[in-house]
C-alpha cells in the first residue's frame, strides 16, 4: 500500500458523519498534488450502508473493517482494530475529521503505532516533498505550520468546516470494497459504553433559524442578555450564545453554538461580544453573513465576519434594535 492516503470515515450508531466528506475533499486535494492514491476505511459492526455511500465518492478503494466489537464505539476497540489494519497497510497519511469521537481515540492510535497525530488542522501546504499542516493556536490568535519529523504513517485530523463537504468529487463508478474482519481484541476493552442521550429537551432547533443573535463573554452580566433578546425579537431571530454564557447558566445549554453545542448556518449570524474561540467558530462559520460587534479590534471573530464593528455593544445594540424596529414599520 505504498504512497496512499487513508481516510477513516466516521460513523456513529450506523450513520455516516457527514463531516467525513469534508475530510475526503481535503484528501482529494492532497492526492491530486502528491499523486498518492486515496483509499477510505469504515470501521463498525456492519458498515454496508455507509460503504455504499462512500463508494460513490472518487476513491480508489474502500475497506469495510467489521467486528461485533466495533458495533458500539469504544476507543480501545477502535485503536486495536485500526492499529492492526494501518500497521499492516502502512499508508503514507491517515486523515480523519476532528470530531469528539476521533479526538477520543486518534492520539492513542497514532501513539500505539509509535507515530504522532497533528490534530485539528485547518489546511495543508506542500513544501517541497514535505506536507505541512496548518492549525490554529492560542485560541485562533495565531496559525502554525506543523510538520512530521518521524516516518509514516502520518496522522492528521481536520477541523469541521475547513473544507466543503459538498465539493467532494464523485467517482465515475462505484469504488471497489474490501471487507476486513477486524482483529479487535474484545477482552482488552475495559470501557463499557452505555446509553447515548440528550439532556434537555431541545426547545428550539437553532439549525433551522434564519437569523441568530448570539452573545459571548462580552455581555458581562446576565441581565444584559435582555439587550440581545430585544434585538433578536426585533429581527425575528433566535437568541444563542457561546459556551461560557451557557456554563454560567445565563442561557440554557440548548442555546449553545459551537463544537459542544449546535452547528448552525443561518442567513445572518450576529455575534455580540464573542471573541471567536475556535470551539465557537466551528459551530457558526458556515453562516451566510456574519456581523460581529466586539470591543476588541483584535478579536478573532473579525477574521470571519462580513461586517465588523469595534465598539461598545451596550451602546450599539440598543441603537440597532431601535433602527431595526423603525425599518420594519
Amino acid at each position: 500500500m505504498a504512497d496512499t492516503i487513508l481516510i477513516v470515515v466516521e460513523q456513529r450508531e450506523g450513520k455516516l458523519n457527514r463531516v467525513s466528506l469534508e475530510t475526503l475533499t481535503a484528501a482529494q486535494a492532497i492526492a491530486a498534488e502528491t499523486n498518492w492514491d486515496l483509499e477510505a476505511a469504515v470501521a463498525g459492526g456492519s458498515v454496508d450502508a455507509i460503504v455504499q455511500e462512500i463508494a460513490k465518492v472518487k476513491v480508489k478503494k474502500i475497506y469495510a473493517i467489521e467486528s461485533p466489537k466495533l458495533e458500539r464505539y469504544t476507543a480501545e476497540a477502535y485503536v486495536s482494530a485500526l492499529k492492526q489494519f494501518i500497521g499492516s497497510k502502512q499508508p503514507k497519511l491517515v486523515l480523519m475529521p476532528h470530531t469528539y469521537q476521533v479526538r477520543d481515540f486518534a492520539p492513542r492510535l497514532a501513539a500505539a503505532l509509535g507515530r504522532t497525530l497533528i490534530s485539528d488542522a485547518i489546511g495543508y501546504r506542500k513544501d517541497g516533498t514535505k506536507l505541512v499542516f496548518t492549525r490554529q493556536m492560542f485560541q485562533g490568535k495565531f496559525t502554525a505550520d506543523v510538520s512530521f519529523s518521524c516516518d509514516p504513517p502520518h496522522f492528521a485530523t481536520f477541523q469541521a468546516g475547513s473544507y466543503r463537504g459538498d465539493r467532494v468529487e464523485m467517482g465515475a463508478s462505484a469504488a471497489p470494497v474490501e471487507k476486513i474482519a477486524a482483529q479487535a481484541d474484545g477482552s482488552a476493552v475495559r470501557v463499557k459504553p452505555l446509553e447515548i442521550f440528550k439532556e434537555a429537551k431541545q426547545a428550539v432547533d437553532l439549525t433551522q433559524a434564519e437569523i441568530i443573535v448570539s452573545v459571548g463573554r462580552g455581555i458581562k452580566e446576565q441581565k444584559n442578555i435582555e439587550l440581545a433578546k430585544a434585538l433578536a425579537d426585533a429581527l425575528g431571530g433566535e437568541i444563542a450564545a457561546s459556551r461560557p454564557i451557557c456554563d454560567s447558566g445565563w442561557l440554557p445549554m440548548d442555546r449553545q453554538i459551537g463544537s459542544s453545542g449546535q452547528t448552525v448556518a443561518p442567513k445572518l449570524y450576529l455575534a455580540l461580544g464573542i471573541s471567536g474561540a475556535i470551539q465557537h467558530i466551528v459551530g457558526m462559520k458556515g453562516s451566510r453573513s456574519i456581523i460581529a460587534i466586539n470591543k476588541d479590534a483584535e478579536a478573532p471573530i473579525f477574521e470571519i465576519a462580513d461586517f465588523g464593528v469595534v465598539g461598545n455593544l451596550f451602546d450599539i445594540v440598543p441603537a440597532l434594535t431601535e433602527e431595526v424596529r423603525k425599518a420594519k414599520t
Partner: protein
Amino acid sequence: MKILVCMKQVPQKDAPLKLNESGTWIREDVSYEVNEPDAYALEEALRQKEKHGGEVVVITTGPARAQQVLREALAKGADRAIHLEGNEFVGLDSFNTAKAIAASIKDEQFDLIFTGLQSDDYGYAQTGVLLAEILGWPHATIIMSIEKSDGGVRLKRELEAGFFQHLEMPLPAVLTIQSGINKLRYATLIGIKQAKNKPLRKVTHAEIQHALGPNLQKIEKLYIPQKQKKTEMLEGSAAEVAKKLVDKLKNEVRVL
C-alpha cells in the same frame, strides 16, 4: 481516591501576544495563568477527594514561572505537587510531555489522572489520551460528570450536538475533563497560608530524559492568520453604526 491532575500554564486570555523574532513561538514576556480547562479538572479532583477521601496531586512541566500554577492548586486544596522544571520541557510535543509525566510518576499509584480537555495555547487535546496509552490504562475524554461505582467510575461523556453518553470503566484510568463541569472555587487565605508547607517535588529534565524520544512533530513557524474573508468595518457613533448596519441588513444581507 488518589488523583493526579495535570495542569498547564498558558498566556492569560486577554494578554496581547507577540511573535518571537524567529517566528517560531510567542515572546515569553507575557502574563500567564492556569489553563482554564485544567482549573476545572483540579476542581473536580478536589470535589472527588472531599466526597471519597484520598489525595490530590498536581503536576506541571515548564520553567520556574510554571510553579505558580502548582502553588495556586496547593492553595485551593491539592495535597502536594510535582514540577518537571526546566526550559527543556517547553518544546516537547504532546507525546513526549506525556512520556515525561509518566516517567515522573512511575513510583506512584494513582487511581485517576485528570487533565483539562485541551490547552488554550496549543489546543492539541492529546496529552491525556497519550498518557493513558503510555500507562496502558483506559481513558475517556470530555467528561461532564464522575461518580464512583463498585470497582470503577460511572461517567458522563459529552458528545457533539447536545448529546451525552454514559460510560463505565475500571480504575486506574485517565479522564479529560470538560470546562463547566463544576463551579471553580477561590483560593482562600488559609489555603494560601498552608500551601507554603505542602510538599513540592522538583524533577529535572536529566532525571526523566531516558524516557523521552525525539519529537515526532515540529512547529515550523507561527504567524498571524491570513484573513479568509474581507471584513468591512463600520465606524461611527452608536447611532451611525446602527443606521449603517440596518442598511447592510436591508441591501446586502437581505433579511429586512
